[in-house]
Structure formats: C-alpha cells, structure tokens
C-alpha cells in the first residue's frame, strides 16, 4: 500500500510539470493508497514495521506505521488529495503559468516528506524528512514570488521553523549520543531522557504554532495560496502535534510537562481566538483560529500527560482521545474554511472582509459551506468538532471531580475552553455575516461569481466528512482507542470511555429535526405569503451598504476586553467643523508576540552585528593587531589551562 502511495507521489512529481490531469490522478491514487494503509493500520492495532538493510546516510532504513502515525497519515491523505483537486481549479496554469507547475511539484514533495516524517523511525531520517518538509512548505508559501509580503511571510516561516529544527538537531543528537545510535522506538524506561522533552516541545511547538511560538503562523497562512493554507493549517501544523504526541509517548516526560503543555494550550486557545476575532483579513482570522484549535489540542494532550503522571487516571484517556480526534476534526473543517476563503478570494480578489458582503447571492454554495464550517469550527453540535471538544470537556470535568492536584489545571482549562468556544462563535458569526450576508460593500463584491466545480468538489467532500464524523462518532472510537493504546500501552483499547453512541443518536435526531423544522417553517412562511421589502432602517431614507456593521465594529466589544494583550493600533480621524469633510477609523491588530518580542530582539542582534562589522574597516594595521590579540588570548588559555 505505502509502496503504491510512494510510487504514485513520486510519479506525480515527474509528470506534475506538464500533465496536470495525470498528476492529479496519481496524487489521488497515492493519497487513496495512503489512506488505505492508514486504515489497515488503524484496523488492527498492531501496526506495521519494516527494517531494511538499505542504508541512507549510513543508517539502515526503518519505517513504522502504528495507530498514531496512521491517524495523521489518514488526515494527510484526505486533505492532500482534496487540495490537489482544488489546486487545479484554483491555481491554474492559465493564471500562473510559472508557479502552478512548480506548485504541483512541491506539493508532492511536501506530501512525500510529511509521509516520511510520519513513517520514519530513525532520528537521522526523521530530521531529513522534517527539514525537507519545512523547505517544501516554504516554497509553497512563497509560491507567488512576485508578491513581496508572500516572500516575507515565507522567510519568517522558514526562519522560525529552522530555529525549531535546530532544537530538534539538539534533541536527536543528544538522544543518539545517549543511545549510541539513531534508532527510535519506545524507551519509556529511560528516566534520564526526560529532560529532552523540553527540546522536543520547543522544536515541534514552533511548527505546531503553539502559543507563544505561533508568531510566524498568521502571515504564512494568510499569504500563501489557499490550497496551501489548507494543507498547512489542516495538516502541516499537525505534524508538530504528531512530534510531541509521538515522543511524549515513546520517552518519559518530566513531571512538569503536563502542566506546561496544558497551560500553553489554554493560553493559546483563549488568546488565539481573541486575536482571530480582532482580524479584518479573512485568512488571518482563520489562521489565528488555528492557533486556538492547536491550543485546544494541547489542552487535551497536556491533560493526558498529567493523567498519565497521576497513575493513569481514566479521564486522561478521554483527554487524549479528544485531542487526537480534534486533530482530525480541526484538520477537516479548517481546510474546508480555507477552501471557502480561497473561493471568495478567487471570486473577489480581496481578503479584507470590510470590502466584501452579500456574497451569498453570487456564490450560494460557498456561503452555505462556509456557514457549515463556521458552525463546526465553533464547536457546536451536531457536527464533528463538538464531539472532540465534548470529549475534552468530559475529561476536564472528571479531572476536576477527582479532587486532586490535577484540578488546579483542569478547572482553568475548562473555563478557558468555554470562553474560547464563545469567542470562536462570535468570530465566525462575524466572518460569515460580514463576508456573505447583508449588502455588498464594494464593486468587487458585487461582481463576485460562484467558483468552478473543481473548487467546490473538495469543499463538499470535506463538509460531508465533518457531518459524518459528527453523526457517527462512535465509529471512530476504535481508531482513537488504538492510538491511545499505542501512545500508552497500559491503556488497553477498551469500550468507548464516553457514551459516544448516545451523543451520535442525539446528533442524528437533531439533524433530522433541523431539516424538518426548517422546511416546515419555510413552507409555512411561503403559505402565509412572503413579501420582500427594504430592511427596516428606523425611518432613514437612503440606506447604503456602508452603514452595515463592519468586522471591526462587530468585534469591538469583545476585543476591547483583551486590548491590553492585543494592543490594537487605531487611527481615528474625527469629523470636524460644521460640514465635516471626511472621517475615518482604521483599526489594525498586529501580532503582539512578533511586534513586541521578536522584532526588538532581532533589532538588537542586528545592531550587534552592525557594531561588529565596523571592526572590518579595511585598515591593515589593526588587522595585524587582531592577529596578535588572538595570539595573546590563546597564549592566556594555554597558560591558564
């Protein structure tokens, strides 16, 4: 199966440049094979392991596909395939003759390297695949090389992820130094490996966009082509999650790990969504929402670590299951939303919500799908994200009820989760309403058009997946339980620790009733007679589209509560005089971590480098002085040592 996948993806690379259709077919086949392999591995919990004598970089190839990697592999398969279809409709050769073929090539490279990251069970090969993955994502982010901000975003991503990669250098090098070889595998007995967890957390956290290491994420996801954003946000940042799940499962972790991870997750969930609510750029909004959801995943993961430390409390199983399931759910619905945003961008040419509005008339399908995605991402029943958040809630409730120290973590996390959920609802109501409802605010929005079936198809597929998972969560339990078992072997794959069946039942009933009631009311309204009239405007005679609530005004109430962290930059020009010419209020929410921490640090380093470069002033006499200085210092060292 995997071999087929490999062959197809590599073949796709070969023909991606000139034969888009064949490329698509190959990628789809490859992804199908990958999903098949993953589902096989998930079906029997045993997993699959393969050592070959073939050496790469002096290390024997060692692949392993267990339930954990299979979960991520399946997600990659779905989004990777969908994105490939989307790409052909969205980033066409006609519009981008130069970058579209390159995009197809690197798309396969990225899929391949992510697959290798998931499979390889050897530190050296893991690092190779990891770095290839980073570079290919850089190329895809900066695919549109002509745009300066795309390049800047790409470079920021590359720099941040390379910093993370070097943490992983240290991580794997220390590991190899202690083990004597690069081979990876379960070594839970080795207590002395525990401190390495911090390196792994730093290295993978950057890639996962774990707060506060998320600073690269918004610009990268906002500026890349939408199918790339979908893959990045849906799958790529999950690779960081995979890394932490994988190595926290294989190696012992320090006692504080659970607390730190959970705290970072809670902070990320709350602040991420607060930033999201503040954004006016549709894709930045989605990107920050990814920060939130990664935070939610890490709440679950940290809880699981905590529970594992507290004698394998049963609730930690719920938390881990929730986290893993949320990886899927967020991956699916976030890709759906990015696809929607891409379709909007494609139709109107702008990501600024305040320039859009009333798009539902032009593009009803996109609007409907976005509404569905919004309901999902806000974690509302009866759709899939609710299921995983519900599991996490249950775990937190049980942890709190256990009356031991873990409650100190569980209660704040639960409250943060609640607030984050409500904020997410606000954020996505805002996005959906400002973009799709009301009256179009600009020409561009009026001239919008529905996207091609090539673009809509993947969106429908993903939406269908979201609904299905929401309706039959119990069907996924074996997979999740298998992964939990692989993560911590003492947790034997048991019957659902939570009444997923009942939940699914309730969800099905709800969906049926929704459809029924909606149809009934619609028919009734039509039967009573339905007139169209202007929106009631308090007697104002000439209503204009500019009068609508904008994204800024909608989010203002809630974002002001966080203004000490969001640090909004508002430029207000008040109307003056008896006949005010023009007034304006512009709000802008830059990323606080980037603006207040990273940039000053970078400036400091650059000034240091500038000072150092003054020493290279071209006067040879001083160069000889440097030489003698080096001589003296070395002599000192020799004398002292």
């Amino acid at each position: 199966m995997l071999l087929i996948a490999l062959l197809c993806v590599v073949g796709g690379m070969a023909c991606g440049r000139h034969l888009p259709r064949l490329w698509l077919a190959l990628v789809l086949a490859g992804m199908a094979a990958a999903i098949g392999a993953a589902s096989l591995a998930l079906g029997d919990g045993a997993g699959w392991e393969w050592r070959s004598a073939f050496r790469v970089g002096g290390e024997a190839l060692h692949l392993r596909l267990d339930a954990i990697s299979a979960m991520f592999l399946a997600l990659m398969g779905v989004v990777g395939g969908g994105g490939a279809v989307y790409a052909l409709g969205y980033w066409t050769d006609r519009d981008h003759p130069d970058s579209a073929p390159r995009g197809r090539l690197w798309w396969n490279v990225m899929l391949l390297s992510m697959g290798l990251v998931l499979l390889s069970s050897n530190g050296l090969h893991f690092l190779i695949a990891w770095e290839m993955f980073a570079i290919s994502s850089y190329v895809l982010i900066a695919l549109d090389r002509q745009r300066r901000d795309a390049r800047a975003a790409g470079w920021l991503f590359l720099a941040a992820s390379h910093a993370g990669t070097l943490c992983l250098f240290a991580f794997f090098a220390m590991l190899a130094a202690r083990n004597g070889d690069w081979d990876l595998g379960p070594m839970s007995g080795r207590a002395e490996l525990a401190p390495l967890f911090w390196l792994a957390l730093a290295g993978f956290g950057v890639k996962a966009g774990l707060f506060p290491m998320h600073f690269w994420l918004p610009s990268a996801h906002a500026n890349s082509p939408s199918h790339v954003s979908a893959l990045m946000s849906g799958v790529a940042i999950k690779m960081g999650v995979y890394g932490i799940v994988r190595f926290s499962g294989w190696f012992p972790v320090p006692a504080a790990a659970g607390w730190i991870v959970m705290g970072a997750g809670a902070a990320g969930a709350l602040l991420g969504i607060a930033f999201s609510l503040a954004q006016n750029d549709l894709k930045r909004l989605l990107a920050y929402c990814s920060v939130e959801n990664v935070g939610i995943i890490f709440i679950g993961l940290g809880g699981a670590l905590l529970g594992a430390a507290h004698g394998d409390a049963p609730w930690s199983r719920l938390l881990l299951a929730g986290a893993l399931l949320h990886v899927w759910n967020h991956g699916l619905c976030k890709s759906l939303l990015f696809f929607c945003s891409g379709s909007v961008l494609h139709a109107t040419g702008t990501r600024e919500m305040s320039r859009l509005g009333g798009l539902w008339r032009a593009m009803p399908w996109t609007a409907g799908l976005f509404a569905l995605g919004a309901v999902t991402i806000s974690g509302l029943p009866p759709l899939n994200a609710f299921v995983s958040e519900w599991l996490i809630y249950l775990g937190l409730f049980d942890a709190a009820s256990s009356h031991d120290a873990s409650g100190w973590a569980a209660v704040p996390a639960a409250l943060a989760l609640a607030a984050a959920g409500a904020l997410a609802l606000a954020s996505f109501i805002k996005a959906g309403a400002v973009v799709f409802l009301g009256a179009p605010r600009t020409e561009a929005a009026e001239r919008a058009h529905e996207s091609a079936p090539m673009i809509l198809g993947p969106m429908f597929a993903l939406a269908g997946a979201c609904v299905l998972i929401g309706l039959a969560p119990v069907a996924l339990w074996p997979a999740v339980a298998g992964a939990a078992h692989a993560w911590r072997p003492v947790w034997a794959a048991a019957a659902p620790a939570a009444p997923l069946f009942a939940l699914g039942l309730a969800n099905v009933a709800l969906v049926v009733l929704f459809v029924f009631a909606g149809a009934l009311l619609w028919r009734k309204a039509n039967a009573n007679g339905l007139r169209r009239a202007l929106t009631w405007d308090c007697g104002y005679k000439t209503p204009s589209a500019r009068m609508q609530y904008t994204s800024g005004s909608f989010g203002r109430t809630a974002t002001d509560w966080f203004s000490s962290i969001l640090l909004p930059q508002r430029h207000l020009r008040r109307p003056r005089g008896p006949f005010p010419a023009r007034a304006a209020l512009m709000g802008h929410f830059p990323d606080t971590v980037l603006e207040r921490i990273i940039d000053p640090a970078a400036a400091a380093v650059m000034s240091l480098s500038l000072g150092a470069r003054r020493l290279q002033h071209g006067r040879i006499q001083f160069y000889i002085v440097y030489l003698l200085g080096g001589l003296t210092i070395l002599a000192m060292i020799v004398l002292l040592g």
Partner: protein
Amino acid sequence: MERWCPVTEWVNLLVGLAMGLNLLALGSSRLPSVIRAMAVQGVVLGLIPVLMEGRFEWLVALMAAVTVLLKGFLIPGLLRRAMRAANIDREIEPLVGYVPSLLLGAGGTIVAVAVTYRLPLLPEHSHTLLVPGSLATIFTGFILLICRVKAISQVCGYLILENGIYLFGLLLVRSTPFLVESGILLDLAVGVFVIGIIVDRIQRAFDSLDTRKLTVLRE
C-alpha cells in the same frame, strides 16, 4: 665550552648590532634610513651562520652569500625603486610617533632579555644573545607593521620580522639538516620578492604607497 667562547662573543657582537639596527629602524623618520637599517641587518644576519660554524663549508658559505645578496641588496633595491617612483622619502604622520615606538622597541628589547632567562634553553644557547635578539627583532618588526602607514615601512617591518625569526632559526642550524634551512631561506626570499613586486604594482595602481588609501574593501 671553552671552544665556544670566542665564537659566541663574535655572534653576540653581531646580534647586538642587529638589535641596535632595530632601534635605528624604529627611530628614523626617513624611509631610506629605515631601508638601510634593514639591509645592514640582513647582511649581518647573513654572516652569523658562517661564524657559528667553526670551519668553512661550501653550503654555509653559499647560503650566507645568497642571504646577503637578497636581504642586503636586491630587496632594498626594489624598495628604493618603488620609493623613488612614488617620490616619497619620509614617513609622515605614522599611527604611533617615533619616540613612543622607540620606547616601545626598547621596552620590548628589555622584556625579550628578561623573558629569555625564563625559557628552558640548552646550555650552549644560554649564553648567546640569539634568543633575546630574535625576540626583540620580531617585536620591532611588529611595531613597524602596526605603527606605520607607508607600505614601504610595513614591508621593512615584515622583513625585520623575518630577520628575527631567522635569528631564532639559527638555534637549530646545527641540529637540523641544512636542506631545510636553505629551503626556508629560499622561500622567505621568494616571499619578500613577491611583496616587493606587489608594492611596485600598488604604487602604479594607486600612484601612492599610503596604506590609508587602501581601505576601499570594508564592511
């Protein structure tokens, strides 16, 4: 030891002369005198090995002849030519003045002598001035390299540095095979020759030998 004493005396005398020439090179503001000091020093050093060998030897004599020829006449000639071409004959505004550099040089010489008594030397060397002489000369060379701005003075500094090292090498002259010595000498000669050529070229390219003009390449 008795058999050594007269020779050592002679050697010490010459080395002392060389050290005096160092101070002259440091103190004089006029380039020709610096070059002359260097040249004389070269001649003096060329003679030393002949003295050190008790008896006459062709190879030694040959090497001495080459040294004297190169260091005493060829290189100085080259430098003089460049100097004339650039029609400069004095080192104006050096980075460090003459008196300070003189004092530095003197101090360096004293330190060199002092240090020599700390170094573990073979008995037959402990009475010669070779080591302090070479250290002092090296030091002088560095002072000239660092404190002067005219390319020619720097070349002189470099040559004096080489002279110092050559002096040090004389410690090994009897115990190491002669081939190496001569090879090294030849190499030094080539190097200095190349430097002379480059000085000439620079003079043509910049029509000046002021190294302060050579600071285009910088960060």
